[in-house]
């Protein structure tokens, strides 16, 4: 097992796939000569040259659309969004074009494309640089949505994403690029749509993904001292969701808490709760609970930001509530 950072894991995945398949190319702002805004693509321009690692103008809709067009005619683009906050400019291309092309054309034009970049809060970057986009993206048919920051998961899933023949929205996290983790040696792929039980426990099912997984572990460690064993389910792929893994866990623990970054109105957590209540109604001893951001644009001030995001305290409170403690 090697120990590498998230950025290294992503780089390895992209590099391996570009070595393997000549139609794969990376395009985005600063991916080439700058070595990547977050250094994810460091060294790749030197290795692959400017036709395969392409510095784009600041034209998110333009270069994302370029990716869609290239994918229509046989290429396999990886379009990097410096942050998903900027991808909003490209939503027309992502939602109206990439996601719908295969269906609209009766299956003639699949779009084998990865759109990747970080999302969510990244420490005092304020309102326009701190939003979570997973909740919106999962509600569009025709796209796959993956959200992970664990190096081993990211590497295996990025490879699968690049090999998949559909548009894949891959959501990372600025804050986590430097965080290290164990990664298997040699080539491996993780199947899309399969979740991971990150921690086994009998007392409550805690569903969390992306950087919330680390918070989940903090919470679980603290509660273990009180004899409460938390089971952490990381779906990794959000669309399609590995709901059966969640159901199996809830049938065992009888309690569900979803820990999600992002505002709480239309969320993946809502969907998970709805599905769980429908499929596991008779297994629930308490109504499921969710922990999410306060419904405010992200403030710059650090204390305020920390309060807006899900906290350890609110997560513990939610878990204890479903345990009637």
């Amino acid at each position, binding site marked *: 097992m090697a120990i590498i950072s998230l950025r290294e894991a992503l780089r390895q995945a992209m590099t391996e796939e570009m070595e393997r398949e000549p139609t794969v190319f990376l395009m985005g702002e600063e991916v080439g000569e700058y070595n990547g805004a977050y250094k994810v693509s460091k060294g790749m321009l030197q290795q692959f040259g400017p036709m395969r690692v392409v510095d784009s103008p600041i034209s998110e809709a333009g270069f994302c659309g370029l990716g869609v067009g290239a994918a229509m005619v046989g290429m396999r683009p990886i379009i990097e969004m410096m942050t998903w906050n900027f991808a909003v400019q490209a939503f027309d291309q992502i939602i109206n074009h990439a996601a719908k092309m295969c269906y609209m054309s009766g299956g003639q034009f699949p779009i084998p494309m990865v759109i990747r970049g970080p999302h969510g809060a990244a420490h005092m970057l304020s309102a326009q640089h701190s939003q979570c986009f997973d909740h919106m993206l999962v509600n569009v048919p025709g796209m796959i949505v993956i959200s992970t920051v664990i190096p081993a998961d990211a590497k295996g899933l990025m490879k699968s994403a690049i090999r998949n023949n559909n548009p894949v929205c891959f959501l990372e996290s600025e804050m986590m690029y430097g965080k290290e983790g164990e990664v298997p040696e040699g080539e491996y792929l993780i199947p899309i749509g399969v979740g991971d039980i990150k921690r086994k426990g009998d007392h409550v099912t805690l569903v969390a993904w992306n950087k919330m997984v680390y918070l989940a572990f903090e919470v679980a460690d603290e509660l273990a001292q009180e004899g409460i064993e938390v089971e952490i389910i990381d779906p990794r792929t959000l669309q399609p969701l590995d709901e059966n893994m969640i159901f199996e866990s809830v049938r065992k623990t009888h309690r569900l808490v979803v820990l999600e970054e992002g505002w709480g109105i239309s969320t993946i957590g809502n969907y998970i709760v709805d599905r769980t209540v429908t499929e596991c*109604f*008779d297994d629930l001893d308490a109504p499921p609970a969710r922990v999410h951001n306060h419904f405010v644009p992200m403030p710059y001030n650090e204390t305020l930001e920390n309060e807006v995001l899900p906290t350890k305290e609110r997560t513990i409170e939610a878990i204890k509530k479903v345990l009637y403690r």
Partner: protein
Amino acid sequence: MATVMEMPKLSDTMKEGAVARWLKKEGEKVTAGLPVVEIETDKATMEFESPASGTLIKIIIGDKQTCDLNAPIAVIGKPEENWQEAVDKYLSKKKGGASAAKAAPAATPTAAPAAAAASASASASVTSSVDRLRASPLAKRVAADKGIDLRTVQGSGPNGRIIVKDVEILSGGVAGALPSVSSFSSVPAAEMEKVSLSMMRKTIARRLVESTSTAPHFYLTISLNMGPLLAWRKATLAKISETEKFSVNDLIVFLVSRALRKYPNINSSWQGDYIAQYNSVHMGVAVALPAGLVTPVVRHSDKLSLVQIAQKNRELIKLARDGKLQPDDYSGGTFTISNLGMSGIEDFTAIINPPQAAILAVGSTVSTPVVDENGDIAAEQRMKVTLSCDHRVIDGAQGAEFLKTLKTFVEDPMACLFMG
């Protein structure tokens, strides 16, 4: 195509069933709609009709054998049809895949004339009361699985919600948390005989554990001078016909019913978030049978005459002894009287029949020395009764009031006329 007959679910709380007796033999012709077998449930033995006309080509579950609900018990069809094939097909359709025909579990011999178990809960009222209760879906499911009446469970969740730990405490086990009960040093097998559990025994065990663990019992004993009443009875019996004869117990049922009319707070039931005070008295009269205890109910006992009560009691006891009590006969009671006087027991404490709030234990009439106003010792015929009360519903003073009135009625029956 042959018809596979299943073990039917004949009561809400039935979890498994036993064949008491086949009314037809293998090879005999049966007719759809006519009784073909007697099924023992957890409460009673009931006749059950054949689902199809034809020949009873195979009996799978024989007399006195048990099996799960909806398991195949027989096959009806044409004499030359293959019953095993029919069962296999039927089971695979149910399971949605190939599966071996479910073998009948080892026969559990039931005690001869299987009789109804004591139970005062009418199925209809159970469902509607349960709907008004707050209980988590899991708690409801676990309670249903274990046959626990949710009305007898105290909820510790918000707004009195019953949560699974409230139910598990009753059935004697929180998954993985409490040590198992069987931590006694085990008795070597050679020194004991295993008595298998009848439907009735299982139900008695379950319900009375429920009762003692959820209802906080307290006991009030009072001693009654039976002299005048017994004398009156003796004189009256000489003057009336056979059919009008009444026992001491009938008298007690009559007098207690009249007393309860004045004390609806005793004729009550704990419902979780309210107390139900019943408008009528439906008296459960405990009947001891070889296999266990049953409590048939005399409905509206507060409105019946003594003779009517006596006749009803006789009827119910006969049905009970013959194992022919129907669910209606033993459900819906609001109070119970248990009389061990015939066995020579002077006093005892009885366990409340859930969901009732009280039970009266009646002892034997004993010639007892008493001290009269003059300080002289005389002999009186005295009987002790003990009232067990659910303290959630009844307080000591209330129970005492009731017993005082009962004492008045018993020792001076004419008082009934004015105050009954």
